[in-house]
């Protein structure tokens, strides 16, 4: 494998979730986290999962990541069954989960070092390429505690992109950031996604965020967790979260969400 082929994005893969069910038992209580959930995500599609707290969005994402296992059902990426974590599917968590004992560059290198077929110098070059992509090329030698929340998520994004996955799984990655930083990241994420096609599954509570980013928005309903409704978003890219057309979609989806929401649940429009 040469560097130029390595930096070329892998073709994004199709993701197929078929009849997934998952129950948790804790302290004699049983939670039906997912009930017969099926979802087809196309190559290079950006899908957002939205739903009230506890409806199983993270559970589904973790199952796709291979970090947890379904009780029933099947999952395939690019036609191959998912049996565990894999470099073809990288995850971005709500907490950046960067390693504080490594500097920024070494954090991005962590996954690359586990990938065979590259020399040390090539790995460093790949890591620097992705750090540049997220705009942090000047911070390669910084340590995690010296970064702001937004910078941490950028590093985490670079770290997830570096092994050149075909699927990117994101679990509320921007939830802990301030509105301004978030808006910047919406723009950057859309740019990166358009340049380096990936299949993206993005979990969020924020309906506007979902409409801004997703080709499609899947609504979940809780107890048991199911996909209730899906919306295709046809707005042109690159989308501005403050645009009026976007707000129209958001209002429609929020109304659908509120159909089964308890009064205590709140949605950002």
């Amino acid at each position, binding site marked *: 494998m040469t560097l130029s082929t390595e930096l070329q994005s892998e073709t994004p893969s199709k993701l197929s979730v078929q009849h997934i069910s998952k129950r948790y038992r804790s302290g004699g209580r049983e939670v039906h986290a997912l009930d017969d959930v099926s979802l087809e995500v196309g190559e290079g599609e950006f899908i957002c999962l939205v739903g009230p707290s506890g409806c199983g969005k993270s559970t589904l994402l973790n199952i796709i990541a291979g970090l947890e296992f379904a009780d029933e059902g099947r999952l395939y990426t690019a036609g191959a069954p998912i049996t565990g974590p894999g*470099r073809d599917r*990288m995850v971005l968590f709500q907490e950046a989960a960067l390693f504080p004992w490594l500097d920024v560059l070494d954090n991005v290198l962590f996954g690359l070092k586990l990938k065979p077929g590259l020399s040390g110098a090539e790995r460093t070059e790949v890591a620097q390429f992705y750090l540049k992509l997220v705009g942090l090329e000047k911070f390669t030698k910084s340590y995690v*505690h010296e970064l702001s929340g937004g910078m941490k998520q950028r590093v985490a994004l670079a770290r997830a992109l570096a092994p050149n996955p075909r699927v990117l799984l994101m679990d509320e990655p921007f939830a802990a950031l301030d509105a301004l930083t978030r808006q910047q990241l919406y723009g950057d994420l859309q740019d990166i996604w358009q340049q380096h096609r990936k299949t993206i599954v993005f979990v969020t509570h924020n309906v506007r965020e979902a409409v801004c980013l997703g080709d499609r928005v899947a609504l979940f309903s809780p107890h048991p967790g199911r996909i209730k409704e899906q919306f295709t978003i046809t707005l042109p890219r690159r989308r501005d979260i403050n645009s009026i057309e976007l707000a129209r979609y958001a209002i429609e989806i929020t109304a659908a969400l509120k159909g089964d929401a308890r009064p205590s649940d709140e949605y950002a429009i």
Partner: protein
Amino acid sequence: MKHLLRALLFFVLALVAWEALFRAKIWSPVLVPSPVSVGRYLYEAAVDGTLWDATLVTMRRLLLGYGFGIALGLPLGLLTARFRIVKDTLGLVALGLQTLPSVCWVPLALLWFGQSETAMFFVVVMGTLWSMIIATDNGVRNVPPIYARAARTMGSSGLQLWFRVMLPASLPYIVSGMKQGWAFAWRSLMAAEIYVTILSGFGLGNLLHYGRELNAMEQVIGIMFVIIVIGLLADKILFSPWEKFLHRRWGTAK
């Protein structure tokens, strides 16, 4: 700077008060020696070499036993964190023995190893080992699960996961454990040296003991002073900065 001056002033005043107490002759000078005589003793012991020899003997014993205790305790701690069965057996033993003041090992050490360096070594190891096992185990259990999850998605597993993620992630707790182990080792060695005389070397504890036998109070107080200084240096220069640094960078600061 202001803090330093204040501390300095306090110690000068304390010394003056001490000297005044000595001059007042309320107690016999055998019980309360003057600070000047303590200083003179330390100076003479430093010049004729006894102080350095004793410090060297003590430090050698300490480092040998401590180093061994750490080297053994770290892998055992990792095993207790990794395997439930080790936790239920060795972990329980460590928990129990850690509560035992390590000077309690001295009689046993004497029976097993006689009045030998091995006995000293054993006591220091017992002082270090158990707290190191517990600190390591505790450190690993405190690692945020998200680290292991993130690492696994990037293809990390097995020993790689343990040595590249779990071990470095628990480092701040491990260093806290090393600091505690040092304190235990230091205390147990002093107790052992006061309690046991070994002909192959006189440590600081031995000097303290002989000071009492000779009724040389300035020696007793002088050596106590040296012991305090070594303890402080180890804590404030060796461990605390390192510990603070790690907790800050790891974001585990209390």
